[in-house]
């Protein structure tokens, strides 16, 4: 193990390490802790200049309550869910198939198509912006959740295909060969042989895509406009416009907006990290 395990080092270093850990963590999370601190203060503290001192009264409940009742925040959150979940389902479904096709079969153009997906995954969003916006307008899907979902599915397919294809590649081929000898149709091989083996990949990918899509801001700004369809990342800016200079509420709003992916991460940590490190590229 590198570095040397702490148990094998001197007593002083052990103690230093034990104290260093929490200190380092507090420093690392300082900007975030500051916002949490802000979010439990009453608004009056900011007008009187009491930014960092103790809150003159504890207003955490009131602030968070207001975030949920005094604004469109619940709606934004709901939109985020309704954008993220279908995207995850769609992108995973499509990429299971493309990954299977590219991972199992040898045919002309296999590598070319695979590379196309990979390259597409690296493309700067901006080159898609104007045409995708026009396309969405033309289809009458501008400012709808479905318009955003369709685009996300398509774009994420690039990354997901890379991920799934590599995963399928690493599966034991004998299973597929055996099934073929038995005369099982290709679709049934996909459904009954390969798909069950892909469960860990599907879980990892789903968690990962969930976070990516939940945190998307750029496309939300380009393709949606109203509280009917905007996800929380875009909504938070409207929220802040509504409560401009009211830092206690803006802080509480930001925390609320950040919670779902954080919760997802802590709940599905193993899959999440497996996904990040296996698939390699965002």
């Amino acid at each position, binding site marked *: 193990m590198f570095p040397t395990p702490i148990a094998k080092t001197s007593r002083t270093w052990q103690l230093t390490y034990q104290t260093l850990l929490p200190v380092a963590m507090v420093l690392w999370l300082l900007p975030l802790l500051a916002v949490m601190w802000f979010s439990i203060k009453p608004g009056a503290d900011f007008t009187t*200049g009491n930014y960092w001192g103790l809150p003159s009264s504890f207003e955490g409940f009131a602030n968070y309550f207001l975030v949920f009742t005094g604004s469109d925040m619940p709606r934004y959150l709901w939109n985020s869910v309704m954008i993220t979940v279908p995207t995850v389902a769609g992108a995973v479904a499509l990429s299971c198939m493309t990954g299977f096709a590219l991972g199992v079969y040898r*045919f002309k153009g296999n590598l070319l198509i695979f590379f196309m997906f990979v390259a597409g995954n690296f493309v700067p969003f901006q080159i898609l*912006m104007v045409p995708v916006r026009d396309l969405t307008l033309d289809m009458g899907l501008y400012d709808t959740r479905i318009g955003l979902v369709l685009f996300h599915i398509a774009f994420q397919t690039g990354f997901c295909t890379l991920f799934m294809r590599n995963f399928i590649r690493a599966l034991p081929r004998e299973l597929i060969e055996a099934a073929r000898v038995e005369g099982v149709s290709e679709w049934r091989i996909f459904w009954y042989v390969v798909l069950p083996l892909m469960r860990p990949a599907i879980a990892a990918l789903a968690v990962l895509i969930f976070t990516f899509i939940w945190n998307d801001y*750029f496309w939300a700004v380009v393709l949606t406009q109203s509280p009917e369809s905007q996800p929380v990342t875009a909504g938070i800016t409207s929220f802040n416009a509504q409560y401009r200079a009211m830092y206690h509420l803006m802080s509480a709003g930001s925390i609320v*907006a950040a919670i779902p992916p954080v919760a997802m991460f802590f709940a599905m940590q193993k899959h999440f990290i497996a996904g990040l490190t296996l698939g390699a590229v965002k």
Partner: protein
Amino acid sequence: MTMTAMPETEIAAPPRRFRQQAIAPWLFLLPGLLFFSVYVIVPIIQSFQISFYDWNGLDRPDGTSTAVYVGLENYRDLWDDPDFWTSLRNNAIWLVLYLLAIPGGLFIALFLNQTVTGIRLYKSLFFFPFVISQVVVGLVFTWFYDPTFGMINELLGLVGLGPVNILGDTRYATYGIIAAGLWPQTAYCMILYLTGLNAVDPEQIEAARLDGAKGPKMLWYVVLPQLRPATFIAFVVTVIGALRSFDLISIMTDGGPGFYSTSVLAFYMWDVALSEFGFRMGYGSAIAVILFLIMLIYIAGFLWKMYRDEKGV
């Protein structure tokens, strides 16, 4: 990765099966390809096309476009546009400084690669800036930097420095934003390295230890070579992250202060094409094309490496 040869089965297969195996991949690919073409491939081509037009993005009610063909004029304008060069320069700064996330992530990973009580929680907490949306990260850091109440000035005040207005000063603003971006990116690199360190061969370490290697020497000659895959991935995601930077800039400075002093190509493109005063779709597309071409060099390199790996095995 294995590339088991299939010819035996193919030859052995009866004609019907053979046909099925030839058609099946295309059927599996169809939906994915369709989506991908409509939303990614075709738009890329269209962007190239639009970049030859002067167009404010509006269509007349009867559906006809107001675009006028101008040939290469948008590109010529770019050449003379100081804001374009500012953005390009900032892109370069981003690219270079963002790479700090890699040693930073390695450092934290080494720090956390221990087995003491609660270390799992520490690892998660260190990682979690990466999970927060960039919008929130941007807001958090904006307040962190605020000239009246920002924590950074409180801290600088303690050591008798400041106050500074980081985001309001054209000299520092870009660096301030990059620092905010490095926060989640370092966390990302850290997790890559933590996983990599898990896979480091303990026997090699012990052997090296017996040979008297330790500290930095051990890291450089024994550990890092084994971490090469993690470093490669960290490099790839960091470069992409740097070139895609948009959210933070938009939230923290809106491209300002002054003349696009914190803009990068991705932001500048959006600003000239779709922001409050931006009506130049053709011009914006030309910027996107340039950004795409820059990225293409990099994509080509990545694909080349992948190609070698595929053929090599």
